[in-house]
């Protein structure tokens, strides 16, 4: 029954100690992302401003989830829950927008 790959004491959790440099690299990426978001908001890119801000925020969130929250080393069941959360979030957004953003009698 025991996991043969487990070098920790018997019955201990399967530990992945993330190397220090990964934490520092993720932190630096998050800081650069923050400065980039701020800088991009000061220049006029027309309709592209919002998608770029969203893209940077999403990349930052994925970095936090994978490395700070250790999802990259989590079990597949955890992956299912994490991915399902965002699928439900997508359902929430898409169905709401399918209603409110298609009311052509309103002027946007």
């Amino acid at each position, binding site marked *: *029954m025991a*996991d043969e790959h*487990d070098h*920790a*004491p*018997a*019955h*201990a*959790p*399967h*530990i992945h*100690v*993330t190397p*220090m440099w990964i*934490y*520092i690299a*993720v*932190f630096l990426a*998050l*800081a650069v992302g*923050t400065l980039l*978001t*701020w800088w991009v*908001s000061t220049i*006029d*890119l*027309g*309709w592209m*401003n*919002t998608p770029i*801000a*969203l893209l*940077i*925020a999403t990349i*930052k*969130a994925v970095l*936090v*989830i994978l*490395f*700070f*929250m*250790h999802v990259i080393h*989590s*079990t597949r*069941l*955890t992956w299912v*829950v*994490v991915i*399902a*959360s*965002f699928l*439900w*979030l997508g359902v*929430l*957004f898409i169905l*709401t*927008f399918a209603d*409110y*953003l298609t009311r052509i009698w*309103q002027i946007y």
Partner: protein
Amino acid sequence: MSDIAITDAAPEPHVHHPFLQHHFEDLGQQHEASTLGMWMFLSTEILFFGGVLCAYWVYRIMYPEAWAMAAEQQNKLYGGINTIVLIISSLTMALAVRNAQLGKRKATVGMLFATLIFGSTFLAIKSIEYWQHFHEGLFPGTNFTWNEVPALAPKVQLFMTFYWSMTGLHALHMVIGAGLLLWMMMRAWRGDFGPEYYGPVEIMGLYWHFVDIVWIFLFPFLYLIHGVHHG
């Protein structure tokens, strides 16, 4: 499996880890179950904040000019500094978990304390912003005052309603997080954690990083809307 078998011959002295709950096979299973459970909770939190964000986007698409003008009421410097402060607190939180995994007791307490300090710094800067907005008349209600473009004032007030509720809910999560940090500091100091058992610090970290992610989205949504429609 063999250790489940009950024999009256030689009752093996079963040494249980003091923090192993009786309904789990071993600490590894307990750790996996608590991680999964925390993610279940976080998925409800994602939808909780998602609901407010969704309403925010419906109105932002309806009233783009008002949203852009309202975002200019925000102090981008305070917002930016707070974003960096919160990212640093996430780093120290991650390092607290790492130290707990390695069984470094004092370093764990130290990193948890650093997280608490940065989290409190965030809340202090947020309080200054709230105080300023309150005195500028930007709190929704009968005393709301914003006269730049009178026709847009009700929509700017709507934006500010989102601003106060979203940042308020976020700040509430931070306050709860600060309480959890104090609790974890106490347990870490007591020497509860080590390579075999660090689940509570890890779970606390998941919560803290989630709150950080919420802010990663709130910062561009509430402070950095590019005003393409005027000027």
